[in-house]
């Protein structure tokens, strides 16, 4: 109960601050829309897709997972600013739940990611993408879990390294292989065997395949529950680890 209340307080505060900064909202919507408008048209011929809609069915899920990963991973920067301002230390001397300090922030990130995802989905509908609403909600659940995990991990790492100078290269180094090995931009069906073998070890590639299956209306595909399961376990582990950083971090 206290956890829920504390989480809500932190979530409210973080959301309020986010909404106060219209630049963020603009960037958050503008970038994916550019992908959709300027990159997606290349895909129909590149993927040999029969229709534009078919190309979108492959590309949009990938784009959404990409946003979830990156949106989450770079949240740590905001936390470092808070750390520097002394806000985190101030929270840590109050009896507020340490888990709530993390969850309130991560849930804000999840909500803003889902808002982004809804905008993109609506736009894609205009380009003849069609998805059954139930499957779409399951896909959003996948996205939410991904964002929860990556933002928690990002916060945890931020509390450990405590400086933007260390966080930026670290996050880029993590994000790049994750991105390339997940078949986000182009499906790994085009990849040579060894690459597919390596990608199997990337949990995000399971998530991407699962999300694509959902967009394809293919609920029976094993990748759906496998992807959800893997990401859920990782998200729980990430949250647990990051909350411990909130409990013990100094300065």
């Amino acid at each position: 109960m206290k956890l829920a209340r504390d989480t809500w307080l932190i979530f409210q505060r973080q959301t309020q601050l986010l909404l106060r900064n219209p630049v963020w909202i603009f960037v958050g919507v503008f970038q994916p829309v550019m992908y959709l408008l300027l990159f997606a048209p290349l895909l129909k011929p590149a993927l040999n897709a029969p229709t534009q809609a078919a190309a979108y069915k492959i590309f949009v899920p990938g784009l959404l997972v990409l946003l979830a990963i990156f949106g989450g991973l770079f949240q740590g920067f905001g936390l470092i600013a808070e750390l520097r301002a002394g806000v985190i230390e101030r929270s840590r001397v109050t009896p507020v739940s340490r888990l709530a300090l993390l969850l309130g922030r991560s849930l804000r990130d999840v909500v803003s990611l889902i808002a982004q995802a809804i905008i993109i989905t609506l736009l894609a509908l205009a380009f003849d993408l069609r998805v059954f609403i139930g499957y779409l909600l399951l896909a959003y659940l996948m996205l939410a879990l991904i964002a929860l995990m990556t933002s928690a991990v990002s916060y945890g790492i931020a509390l450990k390294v405590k400086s933007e100078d260390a966080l930026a290269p670290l996050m880029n180094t993590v994000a790049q292989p994750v991105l390339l090995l997940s078949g986000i931009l182009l499906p790994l069906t085009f990849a040579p065997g060894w690459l597919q073998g390596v990608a199997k070890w990337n949990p995000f590639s399971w998530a991407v395949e699962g999300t694509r299956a959902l967009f394809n209306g293919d609920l029976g595909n094993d990748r759906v529950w496998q992807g959800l399961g893997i990401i859920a376990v990782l998200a729980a582990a990430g949250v647990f680890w990051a909350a411990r950083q909130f409990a013990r971090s100094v300065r």
Partner: protein
Amino acid sequence: MIETRGLRKSYRSRAGRETKTVDAVRGVDLDVAAGEIFGFLGPNGAGKTTTLRMLATLIEPDGGEAAVAGADLRKDPAEVRRRIGYVAQGGSTWDESSAREELVLQARLYGIGKADAHRRAERALEAFQLVEYADRKCKTYSGGQRRRVEIALGIIHEPKIVFLDEPTTGLDPQSRAHMWDEIRRLRTEGMTVFITTHYLDEADALCDRIAIMDHGEVVAEGTPAELKREISGEVVIVGLDAPSTPRAAELLDTEAYVSKLETVDEGGLRLYVDEGATAIPQVLRRLDHAGLDLRSIELHRPSLDDVFLTKTGRSLRES
């Protein structure tokens, strides 16, 4: 209210390839009574902040124990947190929030209900003369205004003890005087106030009791008056020509009211006496009789800096 025994903390820091250990706090024993303003006086790096951060549950001590507001620091840090307020040295407000938002959130984090939190925020804004700026973003505040917000944040939940780490550093003389009044008001409301400072006058004027800290250790503890009394009464500084100094020293050394006599290098004497006001006329008469030329005479009442000097061999002003 606060009782510590042998509180210790060392930091390991890496400089190049070597790891060095800094003993920031090495065995601090303190007893702070309820309802007093207790001051921690010491130069930069003395270990004041480190001690405060330990008492506020932000860092774990390497050794020793402490009871804060009746709760055991090691066994029950959560209970300590509920009972204390802490205002950090380096600030704690967020640029994009307003004072009111910060105050309400802070109260809510302590478990206070929404309506009550708003009432408390309103009261705090009035008490700290912040009403005028209450809804402006914190980044638009002056240093002094911001400091007042931070202190208000530290006491919004009416803790039994509040720790204020250098509450007046960076404030102009007028704001400092105001801040002293605020802190005294907290005492009237029954709060125990624990402040750190490196201002001698602040420790002297504001604090009921002080502990002087240097290199991680408490070197003296008591009321400012006690500490000053402890060291050698008052000092009469007699200005003389270098040639007449030895003769004057010889004459005055035998006087009963002079407890100790030191020769000043460039000529002149330092006489340690119990009461300067009655010693000065006698000194004047004695030297006049002997026909010695007196250039100047000066009475020096001991300050906390002298206490610091006697205890550490350094002046706080220099360090």
